[in-house]
């Protein structure tokens, strides 16, 4: 049922889209510019900035570390978050709402504060190496996403299906792994990708927790930008955009968010 929209609304929509996309288009275009500084419009076309990425060791190792940290933190967040959400939605825990708020609380605190607090307490305080603290920070960043999105999915998952499984002879643990997990795997993957993108692109927390021994991609880009203003940064950004885009596309393909969105829409209407 598609209604015909007013032309003004359509125009407004396109304007907003333009506003959102224009900076990105600029980045893409400038990454191909042949001049030594980022300028627009570009004078000549070249791919040398893309080649230059590989000659910057900070970008290469930064990418690898960021990737590793993002994967580890997202994975941990799902491993810790999933049972928590299951308990919150299924076990009739007292004060479930309160717990929910606690799990979501990292979103309420400015990320830069989380970064600083972790640095102060774990790195300075008990002298932990940077890597585990960094992963902890990104883990904290990811947990609220897991809680939020998975709660929506599990509330939508009919509990009588689990009851049918128990009565069929599967214990609660078996039911969790053989019935619940297979049915929410799409959502889990979508959540993983979401957490990954967030963690991979994160600056506020990362800023406090990197150092000479530990280079992360976003901070490497920042550092590079302070000393050079050439289109290499644009080229790196384009690659990051492509990677993020690819993941979003994958997530759509998995259909993992459809349920969640449906649930949120229903909630909004009630």
């Amino acid at each position, binding site marked *: 049922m598609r209604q015909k929209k007013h032309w003004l609304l359509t125009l407004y929509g396109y304007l907003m889209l333009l506003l959102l996309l224009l900076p990105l288009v600029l980045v893409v275009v400038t990454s191909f510019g042949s001049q030594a500084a980022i300028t627009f419009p570009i004078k000549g076309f070249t791919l040398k900035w893309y080649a230059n990425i590989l000659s910057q060791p900070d970008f290469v190792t930064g990418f690898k570390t960021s990737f590793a940290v993002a994967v580890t933190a997202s994975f941990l967040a799902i491993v810790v978050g999933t049972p928590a959400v299951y308990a919150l939605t299924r076990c009739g825990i007292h004060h479930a709402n309160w717990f929910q708020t606690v799990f979501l609380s990292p979103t309420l605190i400015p990320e830069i504060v989380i970064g600083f607090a972790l640095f102060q307490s774990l790195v300075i305080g008990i002298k932990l190496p940077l890597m585990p603290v960094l992963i902890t920070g990104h883990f904290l960043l990811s947990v609220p996403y897991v809680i939020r999105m998975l709660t929506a999915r599990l509330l939508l998952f*009919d509990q*009588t*299906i689990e*009851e*049918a*499984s*128990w*009565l*069929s*002879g*599967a*214990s*609660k643990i*078996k039911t969790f792994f053989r*019935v619940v997990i*297979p*049915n929410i795997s799409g959502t889990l993957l979508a959540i993983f990708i979401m957490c990954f993108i967030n963690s991979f692109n994160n600056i506020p927390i990362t800023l406090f927790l990197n150092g000479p021994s530990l280079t992360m991609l976003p901070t490497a880009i920042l550092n590079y930008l302070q000393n050079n203003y050439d289109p290499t940064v644009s080229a790196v950004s384009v690659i990051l955009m492509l990677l993020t885009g690819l993941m979003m596309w994958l997530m759509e393909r998995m259909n993992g968010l459809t349920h969640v969105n449906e649930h949120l829409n229903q909630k909004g209407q009630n």
Partner: protein
Amino acid sequence: MQAMQVKHLSMSYENGKEVLTDINFSVNAGELVSILGPSGCGKTTTLRIIAGLQRQTSGNVAIDEQSIDSVPAFKRNMSMVFQNYALFPHLSVFENVAFGLKQRGIGKTAIRKRVAEILSLTELTDLANHRPHALSGGQQQRVSLARALVVNPTLLLLDEPLSNLDRALRLSLREEIRRLQQKLGITALFVTHDQEESFAISDRVIVMNGGHIEQIASAQIVYAHPATTFVAKFIGFENFFNVTRQETSNEYLSGETHLYMAEKTTKPVVRLCIRPENIRLDTSMDTDTQQNSLNGIICDKTYLGRTYRYVVATDHLGQIKVDSEEATHQLGDAVRLTLPSDKLIALAE
């Protein structure tokens, strides 16, 4: 032989609200018993406690005289058919039906043979490879039934299994459930709010209301001899008269009206009742004092399809509802009602 007994079952929530009060009944081996009652009467809670999905506050559930209160749901060897089917969305029809056998550690070839058997019994063979979402409601419920039967349960529990289906499907699936239950000799407990459904399918009916049992009897007895006012109302008695008994044990007095019952009873009686279709409606205004006859004026008339529903205002017994195939009576007509003495039912409470 009693396959399952429920003894002094009570259940209340933490806030003190009592959901079940002293429920006692048993189901014999191979019998289909239904629990009939309005929503909120505790019938589903009773079923869920028997299945082990909920805990009772006191009392116990026993299978073959053995208490099973400490046995978790997944070890009770019961199966349940849910109102909303509750099939495993990620599994095919075959895998759904095979699920319970797999949990019991049965070998692959044995599972394939047994599943094929039950799928052909429930006429689902052609759908074996479909996912549940590709099936209609009726087909999904047949899969659910097959999944419940395949494990040869000690007790088959059915929780309003037909309530989500349209009428034609409800009737055919009802017959199918009964046919399979009898063919396989399965002991079953069927929960429903639909009187016709419960009467048609079961050997015995348990009528529940407000967390307690009102009557346990065969459908015929419940229909003809409701034990309480609640049961009478629930199964279609619409005319109730508060009475006091006269010296002779079959004469009752309601206000100034004398009513006579065909059979004598020794139990205390507070109320008589009669179904609308059992009252005779005549135009002849005999003034003779025929037994159980009274005059009235028609004050409402509704077409019900097979019959007309007349509401007749009487002097001493208030408004009386009468169902008649006669279309000729009009609003305001003076009529004579006869309450056949053998159709009046005495109620003790």
